[in-house]
């Protein structure tokens, strides 16, 4: 079938410089074997072949594997929830199997429509969004999306949001199934009225939500923290005491923009969450403070686009990092960061990337 062929071709990019004439490439569903049809004479290079090559050289020289709450990641690079869909949206651009983990779009108990448009607006070196947790609901995810993700050899971490601490517990119980590697508890969404950030800005509430999740799952539990607080260390310590196996930060910073032509807020929801390079110094500072306050692993994010950005977070104490808005700038940003981190280790005689965690604190 024509459609099926296009689907399998989707992950491949030909190097036109070397292949004179254009033609079809097919690949197996697992994306590993590339078969070149007659006339092409093996002169086609694909991103996936390149991905595999780099992978093998890396394994030979640097240990990139990190462990977050018992969960082994092949490298410390994750995707930030809400920026990467359920992963497969980006499969035309990269081999998902190369990622440390994919953190999927936040799920709620019931489907959510999300906020009215306009939902996004670019600001200097940043992006404001107010999506409003649009998602198909946990049951739809379990029935239709999770089975498709089984085809990939990477960790899928599911981000959850509830209106009450009990709802978080219910979501955790439902999602404690094979195929889900860990849960990320979203207590930091700035774009919904109930729950979300309201939980994440109060240490006691944050702890209650995490305790409810822990009581309902044996999966590793990561608490995603809000930067919209005065004392990030206090919230981090509270969720650690409540049993969080790791913390991830930062979610977006509450902000807004005004359209001066219309004399109206640029976003329909008035306020939104700021992400992108603009927030990096704030995120880095908070990762530094959090890494000082807790013993559990810290997953750092906020404006990471390059390997150099990622290194700053790792040196500040992050065991792993996530790419969010960076995926919009370059859909292959995750891969460049992985490769850049490997290269840095090789060039600096580092055998194990774990040696770099907190390097700036020593």
């Amino acid at each position: 079938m024509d459609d099926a062929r296009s689907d399998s071709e989707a992950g491949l990019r030909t190097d036109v410089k070397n292949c004179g004439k254009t033609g079809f490439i097919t690949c197996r569903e697992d994306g590993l074997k590339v078969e070149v049809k007659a006339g092409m004479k093996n002169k086609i290079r694909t991103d996936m072949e390149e991905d595999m090559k780099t992978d093998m050289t890396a394994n030979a020289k640097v240990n990139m594997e990190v462990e977050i709450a018992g969960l082994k990641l092949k490298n410390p690079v994750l995707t930030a929830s809400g920026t990467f869909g359920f992963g497969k949206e980006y499969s035309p651009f990269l081999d998902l199997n190369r990622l440390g983990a994919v953190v999927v779009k936040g799920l709620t108990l019931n489907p959510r429509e999300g906020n009215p448009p306009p939902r996004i607006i670019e600001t200097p070196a940043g992006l404001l969004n107010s999506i409003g947790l649009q998602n198909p609901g946990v049951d739809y995810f379990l029935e239709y999306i999770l089975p498709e993700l089984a085809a990939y050899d990477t960790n899928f971490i599911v981000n959850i949001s509830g209106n009450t601490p009990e709802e978080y517990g219910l979501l955790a119980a439902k999602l404690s199934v094979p195929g889900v590697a860990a849960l990320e508890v979203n207590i930091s969404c700035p774009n919904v009225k109930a729950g979300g950030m309201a939980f994440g800005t109060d240490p006691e509430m944050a702890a209650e939500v995490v305790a409810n999740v822990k009581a309902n799952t044996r999966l590793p539990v990561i608490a995603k923290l809000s930067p919209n607080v005065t004392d990030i260390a206090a919230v981090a310590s509270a969720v650690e005491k409540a049993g969080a196996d790791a913390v991830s930060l930062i979610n977006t910073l509450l902000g807004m923009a005004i359209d001066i032509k219309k004399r109206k807020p640029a976003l329909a929801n008035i306020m939104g969450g700021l992400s992108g390079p603009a927030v990096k110094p704030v995120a880095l500072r908070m990762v530094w403070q959090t890494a000082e306050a807790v013993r559990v692993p810290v997953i750092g994010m906020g404006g990471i686009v390059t390997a150099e950005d990622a290194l700053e977070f790792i040196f500040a104490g992050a065991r792993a990092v996530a790419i969010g808005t960076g995926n919009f700038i370059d859909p292959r940003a995750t891969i460049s960061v992985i490769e850049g981190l490997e290269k840095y280790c090789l060039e600096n005689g580092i055998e194990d990337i774990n040696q770099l965690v907190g390097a700036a604190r020593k």
Partner: protein
Amino acid sequence: MIYLVVKTSGMVLEHVEVANGIKYLKLEAPDIARSARPGQFVQVRCAAGCSPLLRKPFSIHEIDRANGTIGLLYEIKGHGTQMLSGSRAGESMEITGPSGNGFTLPGDPGEECNALLVGGGLGIAPLLPLAAELREKGHKTTVILGFNDASRLCRTEAFAREADRLIVTTVDGSSGEKGLVTDPMSGLMKREKINVIYACGPEPMLAAVARIAEVQRVKCEVSLEAYMACGVGACLGCVCRTKSIGGKPYARVCTEGPVFDSREVIWNG
């Protein structure tokens, strides 16, 4: 809809101002030209670094599969297009695409169709490859292009080559017929049977075209514009309100669109 989207490097072959503040950009991008369909778009990284941050979406204005090139048409409007406008022949830029669903071409091969293409301002961009493909398939095409005034008029020669009939309107009457694109529509639709309408342009224009199509009971497809981040359906930033697509109130312009059946769209007041 399954399509082949790639990240590639496009080399500038031609970059010229075709009207006041409007530029035509021709890129060598064989990976995209090969699979692009009329109505699809590409996203261009207008400059390295963080300013602008996002890749900007542009309708594909020309598809030359044989030579591996695509053409874009854009208005210098914001910071991104300002940066883009400085690129010169020989330079390369990062582009992704072809993205989105594209227009639905008339069904049965051999069955001749009388198509009406209506474009307003920069909305003329995606209609050119559509006119070319309709002509190639043996359909009859009438194209109506509307501009604010003669200083904004562009690409009419290119359309004249592809369309059976071309009507140009300007709001102030400085070129072509005075008035809006919808003005010649009614007369035309009284005189002959139009089987399908394709439109792209500002939202009030699209709403007006959609109303006429609905009254005349003619199938109508509109191409919408939206502020976009990921372009692959992941971030849910570019949604528009629709009646029932997939049972959901919001549809992603980047993946369920940018082309919608006009009856599905809920127009803002």
